[in-house]
């Protein structure tokens, strides 16, 4: 009973945040922007309804996963609406689709452990998606070649590849007995990383690696494997640094962005100005200049949020992500079979690593790589993939009770 009370209290605060922030947007536009109020209302209803369904029909699952996901999406939609209202409306559609997929996975998907046998299907799908941009010849978007266009529709295959790779690894690692079973997955991971580097998608490569190592460690429990992986990764990183100009460029910008601030390091310098301008408490919604930051509603949304809502909001987002990550890992702890467990660990690590890599990137703590902040950034692929992963995690959390 207590837990339901807590959840409801958290939800009420979320509605309050949603209403206050959209009311703020309503005020800052001249004339008053009525659409903002309507959108705020719609988001509240969506969040309320989805949480109601999950609580009502699947009371055994972990409800916090959905609540945290809603809060983060909500922060993102507020910021996107302030930056570009037309994108915010699309983002709400992505959010709705994401939640529908989330609920469908929870409702329709039979017990997950049955999927362990689809190992080679996952393997093929991983390779198909990972190689798609290279084989089809993808257009260059913000310096990476990781988008594929089908008619008027475009998406990032690497996002889907991530999902299938985790499923494949979970399936492969669940058969782990000794070193021999690790050779095949190791090879697949290396091939995937190679494609990522070729597509100049270094951020995804880093995340692929982080996920794989985490899953490997959970599976084997042997620290020496982690060490070997790190050594191999360092060697790979060094070789690609020597081989590829775009890798050297990223490192050069990271070491000292200031001499190249008008061209190569323009993005990260603008992002740093943005975060610096906001200070601890931010300029206030609508009172900053996030418009100067490129891709400000996607890769750099953390900078935009920090500028207008303050770095304190940035900290809050980080803490929310960690709590989400914790709830997801917790699901793994209660899962019964090895496959589900590894799946949960993989998807949790995916979300956690993505947050660390992009937040570290926009502040120039680590070399900047263009990836999205899950749930917060504008973008359909990212939103849907994350909700798919969360749906699977929700399913796993249910099985555990």
């Amino acid at each position, binding site marked *: 009973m207590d837990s339901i009370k807590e959840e409801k209290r958290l939800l009420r605060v979320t509605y309050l945040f949603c209403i206050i922030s959209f009311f703020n947007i309503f005020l800052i536009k001249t004339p008053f922007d009525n659409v903002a109020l309507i959108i705020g209302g719609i988001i509240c209803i969506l969040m309320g309804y989805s949480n109601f369904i999950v609580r009502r029909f699947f009371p055994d699952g972990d409800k916090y996963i959905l609540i945290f996901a809603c809060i983060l999406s909500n922060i993102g939609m507020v910021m996107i609406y302030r930056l570009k209202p037309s994108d915010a409306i699309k983002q709400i559609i992505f959010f709705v689709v994401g939640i529908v997929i989330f609920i469908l996975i929870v409702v329709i998907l039979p017990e997950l452990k049955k999927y362990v046998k689809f190992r080679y299907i996952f393997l093929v799908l991983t390779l198909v998606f990972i190689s798609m941009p290279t084989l089809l010849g993808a257009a260059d978007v913000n310096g990476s070649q990781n988008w594929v266009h089908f008619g008027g529709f475009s998406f990032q295959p690497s996002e889907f590849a991530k999902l299938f790779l985790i499923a494949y690894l979970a399936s492969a690692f669940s058969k782990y007995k000794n070193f021999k079973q690790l050779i095949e997955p190791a090879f697949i991971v290396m091939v995937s990383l190679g494609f990522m580097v070729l597509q100049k998608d270094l951020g995804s490569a880093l995340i692929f690696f982080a996920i794989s190592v985490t899953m490997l460690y959970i599976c084997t429990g042997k620290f020496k494997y982690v060490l070997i992986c790190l050594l191999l990764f360092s060697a790979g990183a060094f070789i690609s640094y020597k081989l590829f100009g775009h890798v050297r460029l990223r490192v050069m910008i990271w070491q000292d962005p200031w001499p190249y601030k008008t061209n190569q390091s323009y993005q990260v310098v603008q992002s740093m100005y943005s975060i610096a301008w906001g200070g601890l408490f931010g300029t206030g919604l609508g009172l900053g200049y996030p418009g100067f930051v490129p891709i400000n509603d996607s890769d750099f949304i953390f900078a935009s949020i920090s500028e207008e809502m303050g770095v304190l909001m940035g900290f809050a987002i*980080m803490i929310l992500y960690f709590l989400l990550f914790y709830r997801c890992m917790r699901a793994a702890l209660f899962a019964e079979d090895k496959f589900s467990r590894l799946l949960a660990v993989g998807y949790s690590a995916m979300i956690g690593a993505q947050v660390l890599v992009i937040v570290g990137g926009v502040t120039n703590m680590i070399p900047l790589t263009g990836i999205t902040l899950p749930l917060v950034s504008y973008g359909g692929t990212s939103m849907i993939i994350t909700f798919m992963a969360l749906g699977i995690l929700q399913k796993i959390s249910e099985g555990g009770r």
Partner: protein
Amino acid sequence: MNDISVGIKKVLFVFLLLFIVVISYVAYFEVYVAPKIVNNTDNKRLWAKRNEVLRGTIYDRNKNALTKSSRVNTLTQKREYTGGAVFAHVLGYVNPSYGITGLESKYDQYLMGANDMSIVQYLKEFIANKGSVKKEDKKGNDLITTLDSDVQKQAYNLLSNTGQKGAVVALNPKTGEILAMVSAPSFNPNDSELTAQWKSISTDKSRPLLNRAVSGLYPPGSTFKTVTAISALENISGVMNQTFNDTGGIRFNSKYALNNFGGEVLGSINLKQAYIHSSNQIFGTLGLTLGNGKLKKTAEDFYFNKDIPSDGIVIDKSRFPTYDSSEPGNIAQSAIGQSQDLATPMQMALVASTIANDGVMMKPYLVNSVISSTGNTIMTYKPESIGNVTTPEIAATMKEFMRGVVTDGTGGNADISGLNVCGKTGTADHQDTSNARPHSWFIGFAPMENPKIAVAVIVEDGGQGGIQAAKIAAGVIKTSLSK
């Protein structure tokens, strides 16, 4: 099974650590890095913030607009300088690429300061507009300057017609108001022209960006005899009744000699005649009689070697050297405005202005009042004395002397019938280029009985002071007083 739980806990711990590291880095960034980078010139937010407010207008004393600001879009505005090159140095410019200079810089806070709307007013407008008070509607404060457009234009035209470099300063001696301040060569401060010509004007040897009126340091030549005369009147009793024998020059040793301009021999004369005819010999001798200490003190009373208090402008320090008594040649030279004497045109205008104002130096200023966009007066400038440099009696004597220069002496070209112009010419030797013609100087004021304008004119390499500079001074005075 159990070991997997342990593994999960370890992974959780590692991720927690990584999250803490990233959060700490962001905090470190905000505390240590942000303050260092936020004011970088390429941070567009600085200009965006400035452009939230439509910059106030700068007017001349008769409320003629000298600038015009208009919105281009929310974050950019266009500043037009209606006077172009004529007002370029005194007003300066505001330009995202080249910064802010001149009055624009000095009064930046007022010009970009938002209006004085009260909270109640703000809320009323807020609700009436169905939204926040538009950023576009915020207007900066206007400045009413002391400048007289007609005088400024006349000074600019006369100076630029000579084709030489130089400067003109015109003051109201009673208040210190700057009526005109011109520097040649000039440049067009308007945005597109400035961008187009930046490369040439910033590298040109004639330095068009330099405001020669306040930053040009020139040997003052014979105009400095005014200061020497005052020092003599103050320090040598009975100097008025003394008779001097002018033989055309003095010789200190085999190396140093001081000769009158053109080798003129004036014979037996008194102080007034020596001043009127600008005798180098007599004033050199007076310098030696006074000694470096006394002459320097008088010069420093006139703010040589000191920062002149001012408002709306920045004046470079004029210089008067220190010499040991074993350097009679230099001491004599320094008494006639040569040697290492260096003065800005503004400094010399203040010398004339102080005599015109009976020995009281007024602080030069450029802005009479600041008016908010709603019409309220935010600040009014009150004239301020910056020192009783000399006595009214000595000032009266000097007026007679300076009147004599125009009626009977070297300054005949500055005469305007019915206006009783007083003045002093200067022909200053310099070594800027070998075999260059001397600089042509004129300082003066008018009318003698009730001075309304004091001027200083320098035409670089302009030759004799009594010709080019005196003519420009006459033109400027005439324009100012004919109203």
